[in-house]
């Protein structure tokens, strides 16, 4: 069976829809069925909840309790909340997390916010992977009372000059065949992209032509998206087995060791 490391899954409930797999047991069943041997899991609770510490505690508990050893928790940090540094500390010291996930658009800040620079520094110091979700849902179908635009990740290029070793993963950024964030960040060697929202015929092949295939990570955005989408993209890409293996597992493994 072909194996995958899925760098983009999310636990708990999406506020606007019940999803098949918004229960951890069910999600893990789907992931394992498809050969996922490790999944980097954020939590939907981190998007809107204000008590982030408990959201992260539940995330860790779910991963441990129902993860079958494949779920790796990526706690949320919201820099717009008071004393958010304590959440980083708990993720590192108490939960021993390997990385964090942020949702700047849902949390209401741009990447030139001074606290975001502080967060980058803390991630660098604690050797955490930072996952930045550029979007969760297509702007056009968002609930009328909660409209957020996709994150402009361009300022990262400047900020990361101070943190050349910090590992950053941009999630859900390649909506459509749009490449705005990609163009701005293509020179940042420490930034990787997941494939969940990459589109276009042979979308992964054209992506690998723009940035090195080493920086392309398998990510399904399950359970919000059908998991099968990411798998079928590999088939559609026409890439060779060696490159596919990097996208499926090797790049994520290397990033985790990094």
């Amino acid at each position: 069976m072909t194996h995958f490391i899925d760098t983009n899954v999310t636990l708990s409930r999406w506020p606007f829809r019940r999803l098949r797999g918004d229960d951890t047991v069910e999600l893990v069943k789907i992931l394992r069925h498809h050969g996922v041997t490790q999944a980097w899991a954020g939590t939907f609770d981190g998007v809107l909840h204000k008590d982030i510490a408990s959201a992260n505690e539940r995330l860790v508990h779910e991963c441990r309790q129902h993860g079958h050893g494949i779920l790796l928790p990526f706690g949320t940090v919201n820099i717009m909340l008071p004393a958010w540094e304590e959440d980083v500390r708990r993720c590192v010291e108490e939960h021993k997390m390997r990385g964090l996930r942020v949702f700047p658009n849902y949390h209401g800040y741009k990447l030139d916010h001074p606290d975001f620079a502080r967060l980058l520094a803390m991630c660098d110091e604690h050797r955490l992977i930072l996952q930045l979700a550029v979007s969760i849902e297509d702007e056009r179908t968002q609930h009328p009372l909660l409209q957020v635009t996709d994150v402009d990740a361009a300022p990262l290029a400047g900020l990361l000059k101070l943190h050349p070793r910090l590992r950053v993963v941009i999630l859900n950024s390649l909506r459509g065949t749009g490449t705005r964030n990609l163009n701005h960040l293509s020179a940042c060697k420490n930034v990787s992209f997941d494939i969940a929202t990459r589109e276009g015929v042979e979308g992964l092949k054209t992506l690998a032509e723009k940035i090195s295939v080493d920086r392309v990570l398998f990510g399904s955005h399950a359970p919000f998206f059908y998991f099968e989408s990411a798998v079928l993209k590999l088939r559609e890409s026409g890439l060779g087995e060696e490159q596919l293996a990097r996208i499926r597992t090797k790049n994520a493994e290397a990033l985790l060791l990094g």
Partner: protein
Amino acid sequence: MIWDLHCHIATVPGRTPDERMYYLVQIADRMGIDRMCVYMGMKWSDDPTPADFRNQNDEVLQALSHWHHRAFGFAYINPKYVKESLDEIERCIRDGPMVGIKLWVAERCNSHDLDRIVERCAELKAVIFQHTWLVTSGNRAGSSTPQDMAELAGRYPNVPMILGHTGGDWELGICAIRASKNVSVDLAGFDPTSGVTEMAYRELGAERIIYGSDAGGRSFASQLAKVSGAEIPESAKKLILGPNLRRMMLPILHAKGMQA
């Protein structure tokens, strides 16, 4: 059997319609897609003049010319120009190889400008495909909503038509046309959000759902996943991937003596 309701040559690589069609067929082969419906020309144009849509249809006719066993063409028309659109239907469908029409965002589909177009398509048994998208922040003028489609479908309850993109905001789109039994939904061209196909299956039944991709703006992969990933019976998946579209097209294919 997989038939793809929704493909374009505007968004794939290649210098000519022939090169682009060849490319599409290569990738379709890789994904197990047997037939594709192709519409609109080498360059997007959302409010085309008659000269423009004729030219776009010529490009599609050229693209199809070596691939009649793999691809079908829908004529792109603009209801703002009723007479010229009707003439184009005669040229491309009655006298040419095309089997349907594509309506995009030039004019909302509840307009009475569509009446004669729909009536002529019904006579020819041509497939009627209408792009729809319900944008939360508001639609652009000319862009149809699923509610507009329900209005049109209500005026012609015996004429089959297709709701493009399931209305985009699919939870609303499905409900808007639920009672319009002559309307099927196109699964193409929006994110592979989990649950869409299950809801369409629950509310509309398997027979009113049609797979399409919107390639090359979309991948075949993400759109096929809406069917393969859905928690619905295998028999329903089968219908959605091909037979539903084939059933809708058989009358015109037979009339034209086309094999399918």
